[in-house]
């Protein structure tokens, strides 16, 4: 194998696949990155066996040569060392040549490295996924969906299925739900390309977080293929495979209250800032609790009190307050996460009681729903 490549393109590709490589892997060869070179271009693969990322660098793009392939072939190189070397090479042209016994020579300018590679035959095969049943979502929308839900997954392994986001495709709609049992985020999206059949999978939160990092913020379509054990996201040059979580995701639809006793409409940004200020006096050991009350008039009050630190009270003009008086305590952190996800001008908050979940929606559309369980104070 022998080829020359533009250094910056190789760095970009490595950055993407490195996101899947973990130093903690139990399979030694997975600390490496696989490189396959053919006349069409180069494929880079990185994996921690939960996530596998493959990126393709074409030999030629828009009439411009990126790789000059002299001889094709495959090799696995230690991800960390290889990545660092490429990043620090002196010129933008890199020549890589494999000689006998997986000896790898990397040349750039007057610098020459000799790396010991591993046999690409020992690298695990990519999951075999039939892509005849797929649907597509524009990359920027996909990123938004991930951002609006993934923060609500559980960080505790006590119920592993809750560390993932539940993706359900039904009636031309994708419904994504994440909950750590203390709050819940739900996002509904109308699909433009109708998939064949229905799907219900749980994607690890960590996978989605990584996917969000490597997708470009543009409207190019991402193809999504779901199987029983794997999900594949396919963009122009990237294949992103993720293992799915096993186990039944709890039915959350019946947990979302449909009747409300108090409805408050308020500017989301002002409320976010008020909660942020009040949280300065909320303590983590006490679940970051802040109080919210809508008792009379058109103002709501946000307050917090830590006996040994101090207290804060703030009035906030609401657009409207309907229904019964209400006093409720909740985690400032959960509230801020939810408000950031909605990111709209006005939010509608619907309460059913001080010990019951309440929901937040954008005043403009119904696609996002955030649910928060209150904090009980004694």
């Amino acid at each position, binding site marked *: 194998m022998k080829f020359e490549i533009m250094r910056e393109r190789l760095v970009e590709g490595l950055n993407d696949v490195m996101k899947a490589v973990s130093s903690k892997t139990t399979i030694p060869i997975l600390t490496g990155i696989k490189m396959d070179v053919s006349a069409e271009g180069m494929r880079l693969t990185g994996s921690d066996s939960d996530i596998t990322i493959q990126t393709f660098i074409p030999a030629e793009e828009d009439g411009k040569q990126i790789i000059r392939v002299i001889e094709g072939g495959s090799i696995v190189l230690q991800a960390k060392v290889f990545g660092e070397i490429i990043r620090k090479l002196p010129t933008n042209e890199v020549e890589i040549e494999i000689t006998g016994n997986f000896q790898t020579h990397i040349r750039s300018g007057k610098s020459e490295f000799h790396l010991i590679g591993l046999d690409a035959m020992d690298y695990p095969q990519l999951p075999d996924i039939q892509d005849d049943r797929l649907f597509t979502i524009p990359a920027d929308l996909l990123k938004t969906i991930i951002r609006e839900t993934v923060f609500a997954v559980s960080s505790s392994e006590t119920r592993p299925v809750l560390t993932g986001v539940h993706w359900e495709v039904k009636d031309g709609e994708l419904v994504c739900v994440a909950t750590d*049992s*203390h709050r819940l985020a739900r996002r509904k999206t109308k699909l433009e390309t109708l998939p064949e059949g229905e799907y219900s999978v749980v994607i690890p939160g960590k996978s989605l977080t990584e996917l969000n990092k490597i997708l470009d913020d543009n409207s190019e379509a991402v193809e999504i293929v779901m199987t029983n054990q794997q999900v594949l996201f396919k963009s122009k040059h990237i294949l992103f495979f993720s293992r799915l979580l096993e186990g039944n995701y*709890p039915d959350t639809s019946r947990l979302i209250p449909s009747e409300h006793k108090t409805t408050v409409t308020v500017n989301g940004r002002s409320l976010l800032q008020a909660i942020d200020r009040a949280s300065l006096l909320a303590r983590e050991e006490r679940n970051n*609790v802040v109080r919210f009350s809508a008792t009379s008039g058109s103002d709501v009050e946000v307050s917090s009190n830590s*006996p040994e630190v101090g207290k804060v009270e703030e009035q906030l003009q609401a657009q409207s307050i309907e229904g019964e008086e209400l006093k409720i305590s909740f985690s400032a952190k959960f509230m801020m996460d939810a408000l950031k996800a909605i990111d709209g001008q006005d939010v509608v908050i619907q309460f059913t009681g001080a*010990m019951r979940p309440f929901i937040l929606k954008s005043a403009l559309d119904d696609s996002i729903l955030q649910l928060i*369980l*209150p*904090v009980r104070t004694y």
Partner: protein
Amino acid sequence: MHPATTGRSNLSKNKREEPCAPLFFMYIRTGRMFSLFIERSSYGKLEENDDGAIPMASRVIFHIDMNSFYASVEQSHNPDLKGKAIAIAGNPQERRGIIVTCSYEARAHGIYTTMQVHEAKRKYPSLILLPPNFDRYRIASKAMFDILRSYTGLVEPVSIDEGYLDVTDLAVERHAVDIAREIQTRILSELDLPCSIGIAPNKFLAKTASDMKKPQGITILRKRDIGEKLWPLPVIEMHGVGESTASKLNGLAIKTIGDLALANPGLIKEKMGKNGVRLQARANGIDDRAVDPDSIYDTKSVGTSTTLPVDETEEENLRVIILSLCEKVANRLEAKELAGPTVTIQTRSSDWQNRTRSITLKNTVWKAEDINRTAWQLFTKHWNGEALRLVGVTVSNVADKGELTEQLSLFNFQEHAKEEPILDLMSKLESRFGKRVLVKGAKEAKLKRSTTGSETSFSKDFLDDHERK
């Protein structure tokens, strides 16, 4: 020995540098008559610094230490036991057989606290062994602290049989030694119990002083005395230094308290951390902790442990034992209206390997089932099947339930929602009539209950007898 001689030994050494010492000396020998005359001139200088300046916050602290408390209480209940070698011990049949405390007469025969019962019996076969009677000790303790509180509100109980007093304000009117003498006499005549009192400008020195003469001693320890009285002692003798700290210090070639006082502060900080810095300050007679009457209310953890009748390897038996420990802890938390987020499990294997494992939860726990669920999870995660001779469960970082919060979850909010109507009503009444106008029935009953579901010698539950003012 008459306590006055202690005073003399303290003071006579300072004769040359302390012009008032002879008067002080005379006072102690002759009783109270000179007390008013002397107090300003001699005791006022107790706080003098090396440079001769008198600090603004010069304080007079007593440390009262009851002498072999449990044994003394038994002797006062049954005067036939007076003058005899007696010891309080757990039940030897269940291997809880260690001496909890013993009388001075028993100590003279080589008996000491923590000694195994069978060993003690071998050493002195006529030793009288008594089972502990915690109710008696609690009553005596309360009476003792009541006497202390008749002098000042600044009483800080440390355990069932010791406490600090800040008598700075009283020592303006009367001589500190006079007050100490009166306290000691009252405890002896009213309760028939001996105690030792240390008098010093801070807690550390007061505690050190009360230890210097037992029983029935009164010892003054001034900052300037430490070079002579404290520094020659090995570090292990210092309060706050245990075996492991002592061996660490010895590893730094620090053998005596004086070595520690004069050691390079940078070295101490680097090798021993914050605790080292604190210990070095103490070795230099510096301790700025205030006497805090409320510190007893700051319970930080509630735990219990048990030594098993046999080295246990059966998971099922351990499950039952841990559950019963959790129930005990839950009862005590309930009695104190406390809850905490951290659950710790302790084990001691048959070869005396001690282990603790803990986990901190999102919400605080106080119910037996919640504590047990976490404790059992922790236990099964870390237990490798080895034989255990002791297991314990602790809930820590506890706080008043009134200060606590519980993050509700999708799976439990319904239980809480059931209480909404009553909580609503309470909040409405509170906003009309003020906070605490209503306390829920069950809670009220608990507040009144003074007894606490605990029967261990090391427990601080006796402190519940001290009512918060």
